[in-house]
């Protein structure tokens, strides 16, 4: 069994795909590439394919990761080339490496996501000062409560303060202010960046999606420092 971790970027052409759409897209691209996918056992076999930390619908991204098990050995360089050729415009494969079978799964490792949010609405640009004040006030609170509907349609409350590692202003972008957000993701809980952004301008309807264009810079293993879940120079290995 051959376990391969790959890295990819998502452009604006495919920014509205959901996590399930992305899985289906990768699965079909791998089938087109003729890669020997390994399947789960049982009544309805599925390829053993996973993508780390669902990317929010609407967001573009620079460094996303996935993992797949193959039934035969395929060199990472060959994997990257073959899969890369089968991806539609808006997806780019930027690296592939072999991972030892005893390493923890990607989903268990990745716990932090770094986002850049850019103001998109030219017609109403907030002053940087006002935004900074709002941000400082929000982060100073011991609790940040968001409300959402659960599967039964009931409103539930959730304190997301602990999932916000950091949030700060960046130098302004094309249409106005920009933010850098480091948020928790993964099995220990997390928050959608759009729902955090909602809290900055309360009172508007869906202010997150309405005012901000979102780009995920990368996913990380965050302990003391941010570590990419991908070996240093992964591309090189992939090419050699």
């Amino acid at each position, binding site marked *: 069994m051959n376990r391969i971790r790959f890295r990819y970027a998502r452009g604006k*052409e*495919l920014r*509205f*795909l*959901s996590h*399930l*759409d992305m899985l*289906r*897209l990768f*699965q*079909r*691209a*791998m*089938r*087109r590439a003729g890669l020997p*996918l390994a*399947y789960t056992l049982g*009544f*309805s*076999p599925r390829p053993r394919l996973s993508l780390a930390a669902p990317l929010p*619908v*609407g967001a573009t991204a620079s460094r996303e990761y996935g993992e797949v098990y193959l039934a035969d050995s395929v060199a990472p360089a060959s994997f990257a080339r073959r899969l890369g050729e*089968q991806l*539609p*415009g*808006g997806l780019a494969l930027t690296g592939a490496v072999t991972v030892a079978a005893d390493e923890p799964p990607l989903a268990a490792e990745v716990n932090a996501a770094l986002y850049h949010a850019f103001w*998109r609405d030219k017609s109403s640009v907030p002053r940087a000062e006002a935004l900074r004040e709002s941000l400082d006030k929000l982060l100073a609170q011991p609790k940040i409560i968001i409300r959402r509907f659960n599967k039964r349609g009931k409103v539930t409350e959730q304190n997301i303060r602990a999932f916000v590692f950091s949030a700060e202003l960046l130098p302004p972008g094309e249409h106005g202010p920009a933010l850098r957000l480091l948020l928790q993701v993964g099995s220990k809980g997390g928050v959608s960046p759009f729902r955090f952004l909602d809290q900055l301008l309360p009172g508007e309807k*869906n202010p997150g*999606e*309405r005012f901000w264009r979102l780009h995920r810079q990368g996913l990380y293993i965050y302990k003391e420092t941010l570590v990419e879940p991908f070996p240093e120079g992964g591309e090189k290995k992939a090419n050699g």
Partner: protein
Amino acid sequence: MFLEEQLETLLPFVQKPARYLGNEWNAVKKDHSSVAVRMALAFPDIYEVGMSNLGLKILYEIINLHPRMLMERVFAPAADMEALMRREGVPLFALESARPVREFDFLGFSLQYELSYSNILNMLDLAGIPLLSKDRGREEPLIIGGGPCAFNPEPLAPFFDLFLLGDGEEALPEILERWITLSCEASGNKERILAGLAGLEGVYIPGFYRPSYGAGGLFQGISRLHKAAPEAVRKRVVRDLERAPYPLAPVVPNIEAVHDRGMVELFRGCSRGCRFCQAGIIYRPVRRRSPERVKQIAREMLQATGYEELSLASLSSCDYPGIDTLIGSLHAEHAAENVRFTLPSLRLDSFSVELAQQFHQGRRGSLTFAPEAGTERLRRVIGKNISDDDLFTAVGDAVAAGWQSFKLYFMIGLPSEEDEDVRGIAALCEELMRRISKNQNRRIRLAISVSTFVPKAHTPFQWEPQLIMPEVRRRQKLLRDLLRRERRINMSWHDAENSFLEAVFARGDRRLAPLLERAWRSGCRFDGWSEHFSLQRWLDAFDEMGINPEDYAYRRLDETAPLPWDHLYSGISKEILIREYRRARQDSLP
């Protein structure tokens, strides 16, 4: 990309924005300046429905393979997107280039079901294109329609410039090719262009004909207004399906389509003569692809799409000679790739143990059969000559091969139906469950879907009235009550209201066109979707226009009188239809 900035401001606020972006694998983006004719193909329903349509896949690939032509796709925007487009002044645009569809040379509509007509007007309006053909000049695209409803397109006649009857894979490239020549010669004169297209077999120019109506509003016939218009328009038929082009690299949707799989058409047409079935008439004659060609298509399509499921499609796939051998060898060839091969609705009398076994590959799924009626007498009337035992045997074989889930299609309101026939549906299902549960401990589930009979143009039942709505509802309830105690049978049914409107338009004439426009203006759209459909809104529109919809749906037509679609020839003569219509009435006697 055109309109990009406006779309950027709309898409974050609509459901499933990927519907409007394209960018799928195998989508074709051609340079507009590199071709001589550009066509937008519109499907008047949402993306997920339209992307499941085989005709669209066929035409898209054929036209785009042609170096001088391009085709892009457009679907009906859902209500939320429509509202934003209207608010922001964004015109209807094609997926591939995001260009407004009004900039194309042709805008084609796929006419699959009558309840999509209001969406067609809505899409024209969203495109900023005048609704009526007579109000459009050389600046606007030619509006063309094709598909099953083109065999009676009269309610749509004033909105369209031309219709294509029958198979499109040879005719559409011919139409576009002829247009390239004509648009230079005729320097954009629309009437001369249409006159030039009228000579192609299968092309119907509604503006070249005028119907007349007599006392009491009876249709009296249609007369030709233009010498280029043929007396009768014959449908186009692709003679050699084996060599006809077939889409080997269809677009793979990024979001899940209703039928999210590859489709390999085994054959076109159907040799069974079910008297209610329009598809059985208009797709004649039966033309098959060889097993070798089917396997080659499957191989290349799997390679080009990465699909994990291929449907072996046709009107009656069990009737394909050697179907079990074919599936066996497809399974053998693609064993390592984990591909699922599926069949749409199956014939009860040609389903075999061998087939049941070939198909059961340890996956969940259900088998679908269409007995249509509950008693052998009524099945004889509709020309579906299968016995109760055929059903018991077929399902029994499938259960023995490991299947546990079944779906059965029935219709209510078929000609000569009595309560006994409705009770017959329940009795048949109960007897079926009794038989297949006897030696089995497994949980077997049966889903039955009950639609309402709609008399369709060009069928032997085109003269029959539709059952009145209150009576449809009473019979539906009768059946529901009978099946209530049977927990393993799950029944679903079509709303009588939708079927009523479908019947009105299926046998409609040109007087319905202003009514259709009125209904659309009052807010009707997505009439096939129960959450959008309002019969009251339609009835109000009928009232305002002084038209009684019951005259269209509930009337038994006179077999000697002319019909609004008599000048459109399906390939089956009216004499044969009358003979079958009379036979059905004889068969209905006990």
